[in-house]
Protein backbone atom coordinates (compact mmCIF):
# COMPACT_ATOMS: atom_id res chain seq x y z
CA UNK A 1 0.00 0.00 0.00
CA UNK A 2 1.32 3.47 -0.91
CA UNK A 3 0.08 6.51 0.95
CA UNK A 4 0.45 10.03 -0.35
CA UNK A 5 0.49 13.00 1.97
CA UNK A 6 0.85 16.73 1.82
CA UNK A 7 4.57 17.38 1.47
CA UNK A 8 6.29 19.25 4.31
CA UNK A 9 6.32 22.88 3.28
CA UNK A 10 3.08 22.65 1.36
CA UNK A 11 0.49 25.16 2.54
CA UNK A 12 -3.16 24.58 1.72
CA UNK A 13 -6.48 26.33 2.18
CA UNK A 14 -9.95 25.06 1.43
CA UNK A 15 -12.34 27.92 0.74
CA UNK A 16 -15.89 26.94 -0.18
CA UNK A 17 -14.74 23.74 -1.86
CA UNK A 18 -11.87 25.33 -3.78
CA UNK A 19 -8.48 24.03 -2.67
CA UNK A 20 -5.51 26.39 -2.85
CA UNK A 21 -2.10 24.75 -2.46
CA UNK A 22 1.41 26.13 -2.62
CA UNK A 23 4.91 24.92 -2.07
CA UNK A 24 6.68 27.22 0.38
CA UNK A 25 8.42 29.55 0.32
CA UNK A 26 8.34 30.18 -3.43
CA UNK A 27 4.90 29.16 -4.68
CA UNK A 28 3.10 29.38 -7.02
CA UNK A 29 -0.42 29.03 -5.65
CA UNK A 30 -2.26 26.23 -7.41
CA UNK A 31 -6.04 26.51 -7.62
CA UNK A 32 -7.97 23.24 -7.56
CA UNK A 33 -11.69 23.36 -8.23
CA UNK A 34 -14.36 20.73 -8.82
CA UNK A 35 -12.91 17.35 -9.82
CA UNK A 36 -9.37 18.63 -9.22
CA UNK A 37 -10.22 19.44 -5.60
CA UNK A 38 -11.87 16.04 -5.22
CA UNK A 39 -8.77 14.26 -6.53
CA UNK A 40 -6.59 16.26 -4.12
CA UNK A 41 -8.79 15.30 -1.18
CA UNK A 42 -8.81 11.62 -2.18
CA UNK A 43 -5.06 11.64 -2.81
CA UNK A 44 -4.49 12.89 0.74
CA UNK A 45 -7.06 10.54 2.25
CA UNK A 46 -6.03 7.02 1.41
CA UNK A 47 -4.10 4.43 -0.57
CA UNK A 48 -2.64 5.77 -3.81
CA UNK A 49 -3.70 2.58 -5.64
CA UNK A 50 -7.39 3.25 -4.95
CA UNK A 51 -7.63 6.95 -5.72
CA UNK A 52 -9.15 6.29 -9.13
CA UNK A 53 -11.83 3.99 -7.71
CA UNK A 54 -12.77 6.47 -5.01
CA UNK A 55 -12.96 9.38 -7.47
CA UNK A 56 -15.02 7.22 -9.84
CA UNK A 57 -17.40 6.29 -7.03
CA UNK A 58 -17.86 9.93 -6.04
CA UNK A 59 -18.54 11.08 -9.61
CA UNK A 60 -20.33 8.07 -11.16
CA UNK A 61 -17.65 7.99 -13.86
CA UNK A 62 -16.39 4.74 -15.42
CA UNK A 63 -13.06 3.84 -13.82
CA UNK A 64 -11.42 2.93 -17.12
CA UNK A 65 -12.27 6.27 -18.67
CA UNK A 66 -10.80 8.41 -15.91
CA UNK A 67 -7.84 6.30 -14.79
CA UNK A 68 -5.23 7.84 -17.11
CA UNK A 69 -6.38 11.38 -16.31
CA UNK A 70 -6.45 10.89 -12.56
CA UNK A 71 -3.08 9.13 -12.50
CA UNK A 72 -1.49 11.87 -14.59
CA UNK A 73 -2.99 14.56 -12.39
CA UNK A 74 -1.73 12.92 -9.19
CA UNK A 75 1.70 12.41 -10.74
CA UNK A 76 1.78 16.12 -11.57
CA UNK A 77 0.97 17.07 -7.98
CA UNK A 78 3.83 14.88 -6.82
CA UNK A 79 6.19 16.30 -9.45
CA UNK A 80 5.35 19.83 -8.26
CA UNK A 81 6.37 18.83 -4.75
CA UNK A 82 2.90 19.39 -3.32
CA UNK A 83 2.36 15.71 -2.46
CA UNK A 84 4.87 13.03 -1.56
Amino acid at each position, binding site marked *: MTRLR*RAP*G*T*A*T*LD*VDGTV*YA*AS*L*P*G*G*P*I*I*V*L*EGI*AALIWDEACAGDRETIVERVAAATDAPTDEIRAHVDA*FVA*DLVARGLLE
Partner: protein
Amino acid sequence: MSESEVSVPLAVRLRFGHAAVQHLAREIGVDLLHIKGSAVDPLLRPGGYAGSDVDVLVRPAHVAVLDRAMRQHGWRLYSSFENGSPFGHAQTYLHDVWGYVDVHRFFPGIRIAPDRAFERLWADRREIEIAETGCQVPSLTAQGVLLVLNAARSSVRSKPDVRIAWHEAPLERRAEMEALVADLDAPVAFAAATGALEHYRRERDYGLWRIVSQGGSRSAEWWARVRAAPSLGVAIRVVARAPLVNVDHLAHRLGRRPSRAEIVAEFFRRPARAVREAWQGLRRVGASR
Protein backbone atom coordinates in the same frame (compact mmCIF):
# COMPACT_ATOMS: atom_id res chain seq x y z
CA MET B 1 -4.90 22.38 -13.05
CA SER B 2 -5.42 26.13 -13.08
CA GLU B 3 -2.28 28.21 -13.25
CA SER B 4 -1.16 31.74 -13.88
CA GLU B 5 -4.35 33.12 -15.44
CA VAL B 6 -6.48 32.38 -12.37
CA SER B 7 -6.88 35.15 -9.84
CA VAL B 8 -6.43 34.24 -6.20
CA PRO B 9 -8.55 36.19 -3.69
CA LEU B 10 -6.49 38.65 -1.66
CA ALA B 11 -7.55 37.07 1.63
CA VAL B 12 -6.23 33.71 0.41
CA ARG B 13 -3.00 35.19 -0.86
CA LEU B 14 -2.37 36.96 2.44
CA ARG B 15 -2.77 33.75 4.41
CA PHE B 16 -0.25 32.05 2.16
CA GLY B 17 2.00 35.07 2.70
CA HIS B 18 1.91 34.45 6.46
CA ALA B 19 2.67 30.77 5.84
CA ALA B 20 5.54 31.53 3.44
CA VAL B 21 7.29 33.92 5.83
CA GLN B 22 6.77 31.51 8.72
CA HIS B 23 8.18 28.61 6.71
CA LEU B 24 11.25 30.63 5.78
CA ALA B 25 11.74 31.85 9.36
CA ARG B 26 11.59 28.30 10.70
CA GLU B 27 14.13 27.13 8.10
CA ILE B 28 16.66 29.79 9.11
CA GLY B 29 15.96 29.86 12.86
CA VAL B 30 14.37 33.30 13.02
CA ASP B 31 11.85 34.16 15.74
CA LEU B 32 8.87 36.19 14.60
CA LEU B 33 5.30 36.87 15.65
CA HIS B 34 2.45 37.29 13.20
CA ILE B 35 0.50 40.40 14.05
CA LYS B 36 -2.60 42.05 12.57
CA GLY B 37 -4.54 40.74 9.58
CA SER B 38 -5.27 37.04 9.38
CA ALA B 39 -3.27 36.42 12.55
CA VAL B 40 -5.71 38.34 14.75
CA ASP B 41 -7.92 36.26 17.02
CA PRO B 42 -11.57 36.24 15.81
CA LEU B 43 -12.60 37.40 19.29
CA LEU B 44 -10.90 40.71 18.51
CA ARG B 45 -11.87 40.91 14.85
CA PRO B 46 -15.28 39.25 14.53
CA GLY B 47 -15.61 40.64 11.00
CA GLY B 48 -12.40 38.89 10.01
CA TYR B 49 -10.87 41.90 8.20
CA ALA B 50 -7.58 40.54 6.85
CA GLY B 51 -5.99 43.82 5.77
CA SER B 52 -3.95 44.30 2.64
CA ASP B 53 -0.58 42.93 3.68
CA VAL B 54 1.15 40.55 6.05
CA ASP B 55 2.67 41.98 9.23
CA VAL B 56 5.30 40.26 11.33
CA LEU B 57 7.24 41.44 14.36
CA VAL B 58 10.75 40.02 14.29
CA ARG B 59 13.21 39.51 17.13
CA PRO B 60 15.45 42.54 16.51
CA ALA B 61 18.66 40.50 16.53
CA HIS B 62 17.20 38.34 13.72
CA VAL B 63 16.11 41.11 11.36
CA ALA B 64 19.27 41.09 9.22
CA VAL B 65 19.16 37.30 8.77
CA LEU B 66 15.50 37.41 7.75
CA ASP B 67 16.15 40.31 5.37
CA ARG B 68 18.90 38.35 3.58
CA ALA B 69 16.81 35.20 3.33
CA MET B 70 13.73 37.02 2.05
CA ARG B 71 15.73 38.72 -0.70
CA GLN B 72 17.18 35.34 -1.69
CA HIS B 73 13.68 33.85 -1.96
CA GLY B 74 11.94 36.35 -4.21
CA TRP B 75 10.93 39.19 -1.89
CA ARG B 76 12.01 42.61 -3.12
CA LEU B 77 12.48 45.55 -0.80
CA TYR B 78 9.60 47.97 -1.45
CA SER B 79 10.39 50.55 1.22
CA SER B 80 13.14 50.55 3.82
CA PHE B 81 13.12 51.14 7.58
CA GLU B 82 14.57 54.58 6.91
CA ASN B 83 12.04 55.58 4.27
CA GLY B 84 9.00 53.40 4.95
CA SER B 85 7.44 55.28 7.84
CA PRO B 86 8.38 58.26 9.99
CA PHE B 87 8.76 55.87 12.93
CA GLY B 88 11.31 53.75 11.08
CA HIS B 89 9.73 50.67 12.60
CA ALA B 90 8.97 48.53 9.57
CA GLN B 91 10.23 47.73 6.14
CA THR B 92 7.99 46.52 3.35
CA TYR B 93 8.75 43.72 0.90
CA LEU B 94 6.86 42.68 -2.21
CA HIS B 95 6.72 39.14 -3.56
CA ASP B 96 5.21 38.27 -6.94
CA VAL B 97 3.13 35.46 -5.42
CA TRP B 98 2.51 36.46 -1.80
CA GLY B 99 2.17 40.22 -2.12
CA TYR B 100 3.27 42.69 0.55
CA VAL B 101 4.93 41.84 3.85
CA ASP B 102 5.71 44.42 6.54
CA VAL B 103 8.63 43.34 8.70
CA HIS B 104 8.53 45.21 12.03
CA ARG B 105 11.67 45.58 14.12
CA PHE B 106 9.69 47.30 16.87
CA PHE B 107 6.16 48.50 17.45
CA PRO B 108 5.47 52.26 17.65
CA GLY B 109 4.26 53.36 21.05
CA ILE B 110 6.26 50.81 23.03
CA ARG B 111 9.02 52.63 24.87
CA ILE B 112 11.08 49.79 26.37
CA ALA B 113 13.97 48.50 24.24
CA PRO B 114 12.82 46.56 21.16
CA ASP B 115 14.61 43.34 22.17
CA ARG B 116 13.02 43.41 25.63
CA ALA B 117 9.61 44.17 24.16
CA PHE B 118 9.90 41.28 21.72
CA GLU B 119 10.97 38.92 24.49
CA ARG B 120 8.01 40.02 26.63
CA LEU B 121 5.57 39.28 23.79
CA TRP B 122 7.40 36.11 22.75
CA ALA B 123 7.18 34.69 26.28
CA ASP B 124 3.36 34.56 26.08
CA ARG B 125 3.10 33.50 22.44
CA ARG B 126 0.83 30.79 21.14
CA GLU B 127 0.55 28.95 17.86
CA ILE B 128 -2.26 29.07 15.32
CA GLU B 129 -2.64 27.39 11.94
CA ILE B 130 -2.62 29.60 8.87
CA ALA B 131 -2.86 27.66 5.60
CA GLU B 132 -2.01 24.48 7.53
CA THR B 133 1.21 26.10 8.74
CA GLY B 134 1.91 26.64 12.44
CA CYS B 135 2.42 30.36 13.02
CA GLN B 136 3.47 32.04 16.27
CA VAL B 137 1.19 34.87 17.42
CA PRO B 138 1.09 37.05 20.54
CA SER B 139 -1.28 36.17 23.38
CA LEU B 140 -4.86 37.39 23.12
CA THR B 141 -4.07 40.14 25.62
CA ALA B 142 -1.01 41.24 23.65
CA GLN B 143 -2.96 41.19 20.39
CA GLY B 144 -5.47 43.54 21.98
CA VAL B 145 -2.73 45.90 23.10
CA LEU B 146 -1.08 45.89 19.66
CA LEU B 147 -4.40 46.58 17.92
CA VAL B 148 -5.03 49.55 20.18
CA LEU B 149 -1.48 50.89 19.73
CA ASN B 150 -1.85 50.46 15.99
CA ALA B 151 -5.14 52.35 16.03
CA ALA B 152 -3.40 55.31 17.65
CA ARG B 153 -1.69 56.05 14.33
CA SER B 154 -4.35 54.73 11.98
CA SER B 155 -7.36 56.01 10.19
CA VAL B 156 -11.00 55.78 11.22
CA ARG B 157 -11.04 52.17 9.99
CA SER B 158 -9.15 51.06 13.10
CA LYS B 159 -11.65 52.54 15.54
CA PRO B 160 -13.70 49.32 15.72
CA ASP B 161 -10.49 47.61 16.87
CA VAL B 162 -10.34 49.93 19.88
CA ARG B 163 -14.01 49.44 20.64
CA ILE B 164 -13.81 45.64 20.56
CA ALA B 165 -10.29 45.12 21.93
CA TRP B 166 -10.60 47.69 24.71
CA HIS B 167 -13.94 49.34 25.38
CA GLU B 168 -15.96 46.12 25.11
CA ALA B 169 -13.32 43.79 26.56
CA PRO B 170 -14.10 41.87 29.75
CA LEU B 171 -12.76 43.57 32.90
CA GLU B 172 -10.28 40.77 33.49
CA ARG B 173 -8.72 41.19 30.04
CA ARG B 174 -8.63 44.96 30.41
CA ALA B 175 -6.67 44.53 33.62
CA GLU B 176 -4.25 42.20 31.82
CA MET B 177 -3.91 44.71 28.99
CA GLU B 178 -3.16 47.52 31.43
CA ALA B 179 -0.50 45.39 33.09
CA LEU B 180 1.08 44.63 29.71
CA VAL B 181 0.96 48.30 28.66
CA ALA B 182 2.84 49.07 31.88
CA ASP B 183 5.38 46.30 31.21
CA LEU B 184 5.96 47.64 27.69
CA ASP B 185 5.93 51.26 28.88
CA ALA B 186 3.39 52.22 26.25
CA PRO B 187 0.86 54.35 28.16
CA VAL B 188 0.91 57.46 25.96
CA ALA B 189 0.22 55.80 22.60
CA PHE B 190 -2.34 53.54 24.26
CA ALA B 191 -4.09 56.56 25.73
CA ALA B 192 -4.00 58.32 22.36
CA ALA B 193 -6.16 55.53 20.96
CA THR B 194 -8.48 55.11 23.93
CA GLY B 195 -9.22 58.81 24.42
CA ALA B 196 -7.19 59.42 27.58
CA LEU B 197 -4.21 61.21 26.04
CA GLU B 198 -4.67 64.40 28.08
CA HIS B 199 -3.63 62.47 31.19
CA TYR B 200 -0.12 62.39 29.73
CA ARG B 201 0.46 66.04 28.86
CA ARG B 202 3.77 66.03 30.74
CA GLU B 203 5.21 63.05 28.85
CA ARG B 204 7.88 63.81 26.24
CA ASP B 205 6.00 61.92 23.53
CA TYR B 206 2.60 63.49 24.30
CA GLY B 207 2.88 65.95 21.40
CA LEU B 208 3.93 63.25 18.97
CA TRP B 209 0.95 61.04 19.76
CA ARG B 210 -1.42 63.99 19.72
CA ILE B 211 -0.32 64.80 16.17
CA VAL B 212 -0.19 61.20 15.03
CA SER B 213 -3.67 60.45 16.38
CA GLN B 214 -5.33 63.77 15.64
CA GLY B 215 -3.39 65.17 12.70
CA GLY B 216 -1.04 68.08 12.12
CA SER B 217 1.39 69.50 9.57
CA ARG B 218 4.48 67.58 8.56
CA SER B 219 6.80 70.11 10.14
CA ALA B 220 4.82 70.02 13.41
CA GLU B 221 5.17 66.25 13.33
CA TRP B 222 8.93 66.50 12.90
CA TRP B 223 9.24 68.86 15.86
CA ALA B 224 7.10 66.52 17.94
CA ARG B 225 9.43 63.68 17.00
CA VAL B 226 12.44 65.67 18.09
CA ARG B 227 10.79 66.40 21.45
CA ALA B 228 9.75 62.74 21.83
CA ALA B 229 13.27 61.40 21.18
CA PRO B 230 14.58 59.58 24.26
CA SER B 231 18.10 60.99 23.86
CA LEU B 232 19.99 63.79 22.19
CA GLY B 233 21.54 61.30 19.76
CA VAL B 234 18.15 60.11 18.57
CA ALA B 235 16.91 63.69 18.32
CA ILE B 236 19.87 64.60 16.12
CA ARG B 237 19.16 61.64 13.86
CA VAL B 238 15.53 62.76 13.55
CA VAL B 239 16.62 66.25 12.61
CA ALA B 240 19.25 64.92 10.22
CA ARG B 241 16.70 62.74 8.48
CA ALA B 242 14.11 65.45 8.07
CA PRO B 243 15.57 67.11 4.98
CA LEU B 244 16.53 63.88 3.21
CA VAL B 245 14.59 62.86 0.15
CA ASN B 246 12.49 59.76 0.66
CA VAL B 247 13.72 57.95 -2.43
CA ASP B 248 11.33 55.02 -1.98
CA HIS B 249 8.26 57.25 -1.89
CA LEU B 250 9.54 59.28 -4.82
CA ALA B 251 10.12 56.10 -6.80
CA HIS B 252 6.59 54.86 -6.10
CA ARG B 253 5.13 58.22 -7.05
CA LEU B 254 7.04 58.23 -10.35
CA GLY B 255 6.50 54.51 -11.02
CA ARG B 256 10.27 54.02 -11.54
CA ARG B 257 13.56 54.65 -9.78
CA PRO B 258 14.18 58.42 -9.80
CA SER B 259 17.14 59.84 -11.60
CA ARG B 260 19.85 61.73 -9.75
CA ALA B 261 18.42 64.99 -11.10
CA GLU B 262 14.93 64.14 -9.84
CA ILE B 263 16.29 63.35 -6.35
CA VAL B 264 18.09 66.69 -6.30
CA ALA B 265 14.92 68.48 -7.44
CA GLU B 266 12.90 66.75 -4.72
CA PHE B 267 15.55 67.67 -2.16
CA PHE B 268 14.98 71.35 -2.87
CA ARG B 269 11.20 70.98 -3.09
CA ARG B 270 10.80 69.45 0.43
CA PRO B 271 12.37 72.27 2.47
CA ALA B 272 10.18 74.63 0.49
CA ARG B 273 7.15 72.60 1.53
CA ALA B 274 8.29 72.62 5.18
CA VAL B 275 8.76 76.39 5.08
CA ARG B 276 5.33 76.77 3.50
CA GLU B 277 3.76 74.63 6.26
CA ALA B 278 5.59 76.58 8.96
CA TRP B 279 4.40 79.84 7.40
CA GLN B 280 0.81 78.59 7.27
CA GLY B 281 1.13 77.50 10.90
CA LEU B 282 2.37 80.95 11.93
CA ARG B 283 -0.49 82.57 10.06
CA ARG B 284 -2.99 80.30 11.83
CA VAL B 285 -1.47 81.21 15.21
CA GLY B 286 -1.53 84.89 14.29
CA ALA B 287 -5.14 84.69 13.13
CA SER B 288 -6.24 83.05 16.36
CA ARG B 289 -4.71 85.78 18.54
